[in-house]
């Protein structure tokens, strides 16, 4: 163990054990230090000094949603997110991958999506009557919006079409971005997807990539350039989340040109991968305001936002824990008595909706930003 952690030793020893990272969503639910950043760093320190970590404690390493909140408060400024992912990569090499994470990887290996859905059905959502061009602007729908939250992909295609933005969509050639693998300690497998995706994009002359998924966004914007650098591959793509793209291209039209506005009170859930990881906070909020909704903020917002509970492979391997975290997030929205809880990620939407269902709540309605934009377009007599 000490050997595989060799180059991480200084970060491990730097932990002051101050417990500021007690705000970790997983720790908030489970309340044992073995799942807190502080505890995990102490266990790593013990293992550097020859204490063996047993399987239970090893499993606890994977209860982290990779939300990054701990790094935000760390008293010493340890790059914790990187440390968690690196540690996972090392642990899986010596101890193997957790069962649910292995299943995800196997599905990706066969079907190019973690859901085990047929490749042939990937573009099943694509609305009739909308043209795909060979534009250098690509809409990358991602696995979740393609198979599980199709309304997001459909809304996006309709929005782009409404604003007469030519875009390419690779249909059955679109494959998983690799985010799930990168977060669950399977970087080697993810690297293959990186290479394949870049090859396809280059072949199609893509320059700008629009995503509706926060996970895809983070992976393309942060992980791909890093992996490409390691592998000596050129990476020259502009990566934008739909909210950034629409705010840039049509923000003013929505705000000033669309007179019929949406009504109601809404709050915005910053997806960790889009907000804290990548710094995209303002554009989704601008669009929500432009739609006419009354935007109010939850207790934890922007840099301090609280995870939905799904990320980092936690939803797959530790479903109950992930739902408990989801409930904590919903509680913050409930305290504001909002009509809508809006996010910018199909995975957040899916998970928060699930948490809402198990909590037997009626409100708030959970929407993606793409659905909000489409709603306001519809209000103004645009596409239905």
């Amino acid at each position, binding site marked *: 163990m000490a050997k595989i952690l060799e180059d991480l030793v200084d970060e491990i020893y730097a932990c002051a054990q*101050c*417990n*500021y990272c007690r705000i970790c969503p997983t720790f908030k639910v489970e309340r*044992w230090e073995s799942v807190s950043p502080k505890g995990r760093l102490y266990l790593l320190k013990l293992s550097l000094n020859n*204490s063996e*970590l*047993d399987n239970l404690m090893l499993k606890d390493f994977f209860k982290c949603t990779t939300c990054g909140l701990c790094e935000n408060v760390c008293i010493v*400024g340890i790059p914790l997110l990187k440390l968690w992912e690196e540690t996972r990569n090392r642990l899986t090499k010596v101890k193997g991958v957790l069962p649910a994470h292995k299943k995800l990887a196997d599905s990706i290996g066969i079907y190019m999506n973690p859901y085990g859905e047929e490749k042939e059905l990937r573009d099943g959502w694509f609305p009739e009557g909308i043209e795909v061009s060979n534009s250098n602007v690509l809409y990358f729908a991602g696995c979740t919006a393609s198979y599980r939250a199709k309304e997001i992909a459909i809304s996006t295609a309709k929005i782009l079409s409404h604003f007469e933005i030519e875009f390419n969509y690779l249909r059955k050639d679109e494959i998983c971005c690799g985010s799930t693998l990168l977060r669950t300690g399977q970087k080697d497998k993810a690297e293959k997807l990186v290479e394949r995706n870049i090859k396809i994009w280059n072949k199609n002359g893509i320059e700008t990539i629009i995503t509706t998924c926060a996970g895809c966004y983070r992976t393309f914007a942060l992980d791909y350039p890093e992996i490409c650098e390691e592998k000596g591959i050129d990476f020259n793509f502009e990566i934008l989340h739909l909210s950034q793209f629409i705010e840039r291209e049509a923000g003013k039209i929505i705000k000033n040109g669309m007179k019929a506005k949406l009504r109601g009170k809404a709050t915005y859930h910053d997806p960790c991968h889009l907000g804290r990881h990548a710094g995209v906070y303002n554009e989704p909020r601008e669009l929500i305001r432009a739609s006419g909704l009354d935007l109010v903020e939850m207790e934890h917002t922007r840099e301090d936002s609280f995870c939905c509970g799904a990320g980092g492979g936690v939803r797959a391997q530790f479903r109950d824990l992930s739902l408990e975290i989801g409930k904590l997030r919903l509680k913050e929205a409930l305290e504001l008595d909002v009509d809508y809880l809006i996010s910018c990620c199909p995975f957040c939407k899916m998970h928060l909706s699930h948490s809402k269902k198990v909590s037997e709540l009626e409100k708030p309605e959970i929407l993606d930003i793409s659905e909000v934009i489409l709603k306001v377009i519809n209000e103004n007599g645009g596409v239905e």
Partner: protein
Amino acid sequence: MEIMEKFEMEVRKLFSHVSFHPLEIKLYSHDISVIPGYLEKMVSSDAEVIIQPESVDDVREILRISGEYSKPIVPRGSATSGYGGVVPLKGGIVVDFSRMNHFEIDEETKTVKSEPGAIWWDIQKEARKKNLSLRIYPTSALSSTVGGWIAQGGLGIGSTMFGGIGENIEEIEVLDFERDKRVKKVRHDNLKYYIGMEGTTGLITSSAIKLMDYKEEIPVAADVKGVMEAVKIVERTKPYSAILMSSEFFRMMNEVKGTDFEEKDILLAVYLEKAGLDGRDAYDLWNDRFYPLRIKKKGPSLVSIESLIPFENLGSYYREIKKEVAADHAVQTYFSKKEANVIVLIPSDERDKRFMKDWKTAFKLLKVGMKLGGRPYATGLYLSYLSRRIILDYDELLKFKKKVDPANLLNPGKIFPEGRVPMLMKIAGLVI
């Protein structure tokens, strides 16, 4: 059935949140301190079980089984203290109070009634919503608990105006082994039996803490030449809170954080409503007040020496620091009403020989501080050999301890020296 098996069975039956897992136990058997390896081997020890009580009834049950099985009790907040106070020297039960974290603010009486596991900053956030504020809190407020800081007996932000935590408490409730295990309500002079006593005389189950009306905090930074100039400013302008940070501290911050703080000795004086001093506004420093340990990254370890020194001797103490500490170091001084907590921080490396040397310096500084009428910030486990010398009313407190805890099960070895640790630490102080 073996006694231990019976004990485990009973504990599991009685409490919803327990852990006997050996690695979890490791996590709950230390505090933030790192001491030289050979000493650690001799003074560290593991708990037998961790229990997370949810109510006063749970705490009462913990006392009962502790008595029945002769298992020591080690109360624990967030373990942000660094004198071994939460180390289970003789094994036993670590009582993690983190689930007892409810509190209620009474706007009328301007107090907060809090369970021991509540986090200071959580209280402050709620108080602010009601236009109230804590009078004082530690700079570890983002994680430290009400029970932990009271039992540690600290000074903190606001202490320049309001003194130590003991001066800001209306009442605490405690449980101990005496009589019928009814909660004791403690006020006024009797608070001395619990504040700073590290849980050796009772488990704090509730506290009523004084609040104040919220007033805008105005942080001002002033360059000072020497600590005595800072003392003069503090005495003349009577700020709410005051911290003197050495130029080396800013240099180290700039090194690890890439900031561009001016590398000068700076007094951060915080006033309520109206600035009492000309100087530049210092919201940047004020907002960083929870991050005094940032410079640990330089280490990666940090040897920290904290001494409470009377104002009049601060100049001499600073001169001694210059003389005694050869290693690169930073100084932060937190002013209370008449004394100041001087913290010397030496970035070090516990994997390296210099760690021993830096500890040697630490012990030397402690001695120098005591010669100048000062005392260590706490005694805990590691410095219990000094308790008799530095704690006022020591004999009375010891008598009280024997009355409420005749079998010495409440955090044994802390404050009141016991076993070989005091001797070992004393020798370490002489030889390392």
